[in-house]
């Protein structure tokens, strides 16, 4: 499976329609860049998760590790590869 990062670039690809708005990722994110998009509702009827500040995301993937619905695919931009 070839996975490509989002265009325009963002470190997260979110499977919105699998999100159940549980907010486990919101609590897990060390940079506090995840929040429910309370202005929208997905196909399951929940407010889906949204990356509020892609530039501040460090691609730590804590969100992916805690998500019960595996909605996150995580990339790191090349400038972060050395960290």
């Amino acid at each position: 499976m070839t996975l490509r990062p989002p265009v325009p670039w963002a470190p997260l690809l979110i499977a919105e329609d699998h999100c159940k708005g549980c907010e486990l990722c919101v609590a897990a994110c060390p940079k506090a860049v995840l929040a429910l998009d309370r202005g929208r509702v997905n196909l399951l009827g929940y407010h889906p998760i949204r990356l509020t500040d892609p530039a501040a995301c460090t691609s730590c993937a804590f969100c992916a590790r805690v998500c019960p619905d595996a909605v996150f695919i995580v990339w790191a931009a090349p400038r972060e590869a050395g960290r």
Partner: protein
Amino acid sequence: MTLHTPGSATPATAAARLIYHKPDVLLDRSTHYCPGCGHGIVHRLLAEVLTELDLPAHTIAVAPVGCAVFAYDYLNVDFVEAPHGRAPAVATGIRRVRPEAFVLTYQGDGDLAAIGTAEIVHAAARGERITAIFVNNGIYGMTGGQMAPTTLLGQRTTSSPNGRDAALMGYPIRITEMLAQLPGVAYAARGTVADVPAIGRLKAMIKRACQIQLNSGGFAIVEALSNCPVGWGMTPLQSLEHLKGPVVDAYPLGVIVDRGLGADTHPAAGTACPAPSHPEA
């Protein structure tokens, strides 16, 4: 097909490094589990471990009766449905006639510690070469939140509306400690899904339990303390706090027994989350 949020506009780069994606053996569909339910986390960890150990093509898994009755809809391996509690016996039958298969059971606390107590004790006593994943959330979720053998004292459930009273309903069972006494049990450990570090440690336990089977060590069981937000009457985040507090007080974390059977010949590797090193695992 699912929608994606591209985020704000920064230059696209083809040299981006893929940090995490879910393994293919975890099927790309919405689950019926409640928001924030730990089953989703454990399914994902299992999928990662099976992938890292190159096991999906050899796996025959046994599904329980409970919230995870539809586990076979989410994990893309051969599955048989077992009657309530009988998974360890069903797994024994599979293991005995298919020595080359990788056999695992996935059970909740009602399935394993109530109706299935005889089956798990005797599969463990026989040292059956199977890996048992035991998801303990201290409640009967699927049937509407009734008391389980692992429900905490004082906990309100739909069948203990005034809170679990030891005099009438007995005490919670630490079944994994009971099993750990049996010589046939090569590995018994307890972890939790309460936060990211705990999830990492739990994954290492699941991996060790699978490796034990591959190295013919004997019976291996991992108890994953999990949550039931709806049954507990809490939000998902509150339920994880509850898990870190009273639940872990009642069910101590760590490796309960590791008899060191079977050499560890499968190094942790793979494209998904690398297992963090942990002294006990």
